[in-house]
């Protein structure tokens, strides 16, 4: 595996015709399905969103809502079989990633787009020193020499605020605490200055106190580099704190989209409303939390019409027949509900 080969794949993506005026990342009508023995699961059913430079977008949803799958599809790391992208596009500065050959896609990963994972302990190879794994990024993509790559690894560890980076560079992942592992993972992801960072529940496995530090680190690094960030999470508190915009997913579809402020001020989809009502807040002290009734749908047997209707307090006859499209409600917000306006204005 000569370094020339690697450099040539790198230059091959440099030759792609990026349009600097096109949105940083634009996901358009993405359909992903998993063909299992039990049947076809539509994990993403027409997901559309876009991400600008320096922007943080949240993708919120329960487990199984398809939020991770949409990120994996954009990164091009869906296992196929059983997963297939059947329709749609993911454009990076105007270039459709899904149409690129695999070696160019691979050159893209790490270089232009990177991803961090929920459980950093299992996302780091247990047999190699942390510094080696970070240095590996430079060696495999840039053909940097060993000593140079190590120096850069130390700089990066320093940048993600791992104390005593010079000593820590030779530690193994299991010698790091949870927060430090996630920092190391972030360092790896940021090694090549990607323009898009997808963070898949980066703080779910961490203590609350460490969570806040990691989120702050991500926000700081984003401010430094100007990259766009997609934050996949089910934690609304995190969404409220760090994101500019949010997309709420349910059963493989985006059901509500808008700026974070808008969504937190007034939800225009009953599912989002349900999520908001189920968070504990100091004002509600003494009152009962209102959970969303029922349970997430079986993706193999989706309810007819609007997939949320069996759990929805606003549901009418039309909801079990007609699947509501993601409608533009003006002011950059969208909702996939027949009664979005009523939900938003609380007219019930």
């Amino acid at each position, binding site marked *: 595996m000569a370094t020339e080969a690697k450099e040539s794949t790198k230059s091959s993506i440099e030759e792609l015709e990026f349009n600097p005026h096109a949105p940083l990342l634009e996901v358009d009508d993405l359909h992903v399905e998993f063909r299992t023995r039990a049947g076809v699961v539509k994990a993403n059913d027409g997901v559309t969103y876009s991400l600008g430079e320096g922007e943080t977008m949240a993708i919120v949803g329960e487990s199984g809502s398809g939020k991770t799958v949409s990120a994996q599809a954009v990164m091009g790391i869906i296992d196929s079989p059983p997963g297939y992208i059947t329709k749609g596009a993911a454009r990076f500065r105007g270039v459709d990633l899904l149409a690129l050959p695999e070696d160019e896609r691979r050159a893209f990963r790490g270089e232009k787009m990177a991803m961090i994972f929920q459980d950093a302990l299992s996302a780091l*190879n247990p047999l190699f020193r942390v510094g080696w794994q970070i240095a590996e990024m430079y060696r495999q993509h840039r053909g940097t020499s060993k000593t140079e790559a190590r120096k850069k690894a130390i700089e990066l560890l320093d940048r993600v605020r791992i104390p005593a980076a010079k000593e820590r560079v030779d530690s193994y992942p299991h010698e*790091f605490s949870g927060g430090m592992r996630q920092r190391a993972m972030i360092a790896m992801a940021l090694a090549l200055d990607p323009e898009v960072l997808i963070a898949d529940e980066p703080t779910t496995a961490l203590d609350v*106190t460490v969570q806040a530090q990691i989120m702050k680190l991500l926000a700081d690094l984003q401010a430094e580099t100007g990259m766009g960030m997609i934050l996949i999470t089910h934690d609304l508190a995190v969404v409220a704190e760090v994101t500019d915009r949010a997309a709420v997913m349910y059963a493989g579809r985006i059901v509500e989209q808008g700026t974070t402020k808008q969504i937190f001020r007034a939800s225009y989809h009953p599912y989002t409303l349900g999520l908001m009502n189920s968070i504990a807040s100091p004002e509600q002290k003494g009152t009962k939390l209102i959970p969303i009734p029922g349970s997430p749908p079986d993706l193999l047997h989706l309810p007819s019409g609007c997939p949320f209707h069996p759990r929805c307090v606003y549901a009418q006859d039309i909801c079990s027949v007609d699947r509501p499209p993601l409608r533009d409600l003006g002011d950059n917000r969208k909702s996939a509900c027949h009664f979005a306006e009523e939900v938003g204005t609380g007219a019930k």
Partner: protein
Amino acid sequence: MSDFRQAEAVTETETVAPPVTEEVEEEVQKPIEGPPPGATTSLWSDAWKELRTSPLFLVSLGLVVLFIVMAIAPQLFTSTDPRACSLSNSLERPSSEHWFGFDLQGCDYYARSIYGARISMAIGVTVIGFAAILAVILGSISGYYGGWLDSVIARLTDIWFAIPTILGGIVILSLLGERGFFQVSFVLVILGWPTMLRLYRSSVLSVKEMDYVEAARALGASDFRILLKHILPNAITPVIIYAAISIGVIIAAEAALSFLGVGLQLPAISWGLMISGAQTRILQAPHLLLFPGLFLSLAVFGFILMGDALRDALDPKGR
């Protein structure tokens, strides 16, 4: 494992941060008093620590090293030429001068037993080495890529499995005119690789589901790099353990084939051939069977014991 916990405790500096508020406060940074760099622990260094104190491992290591040295430098153990024979000494019993006695041709039996180690060890190591390389290459393709290639390889190993080693060896070797080191090694590789392949394939299947493999892909590693740097080091352990045990089994198989007359041929010096030569004179000269049999058993025992000790040390659940 205790070192592991200590390291965890010492590095846990981040939990002393203030609780979450709207404003996240600067984290507390205090110097870390971790273990010095280089004193870190990994699976292998943990295993080594355990192995160093394991009597089973030390005994097996002693035996294995003894036989390896014997194979490389038999002159260290005897100054007698195993091929300098005198029929006048034929079948002489062990004596204080010639500890193991003499064989039918009047060759010094001690020297022959020592020199016999070379071919046994060489066959054991060669066969396992080639089988392991085959297993890793085919197992990687089969386990990592899956699909029809996997089905073909899996069915092929199934069919191969149905062939008993010794019987298959007899059939193939009796078809070959000349039977030397290469022919015997070749046949044993051919018959020995399927088990290792299956072992490595199943190991690859479980390792490839690990998050770090997905993470490596998400950060742009090629398939080759993933297989080499992420899957191989994490999936090879069961193969190493099996290989250590198998070297013993292969040495025994070579001896069995030679004993049956389809393995190595005279004038090669091998324990199998020596045992074979002893078979018609067991009552008359029992030492002819005893000494090569003892060497063979000890070598096989050493490798199998080593495999066991390695398994105990490398299996994290066993600790």
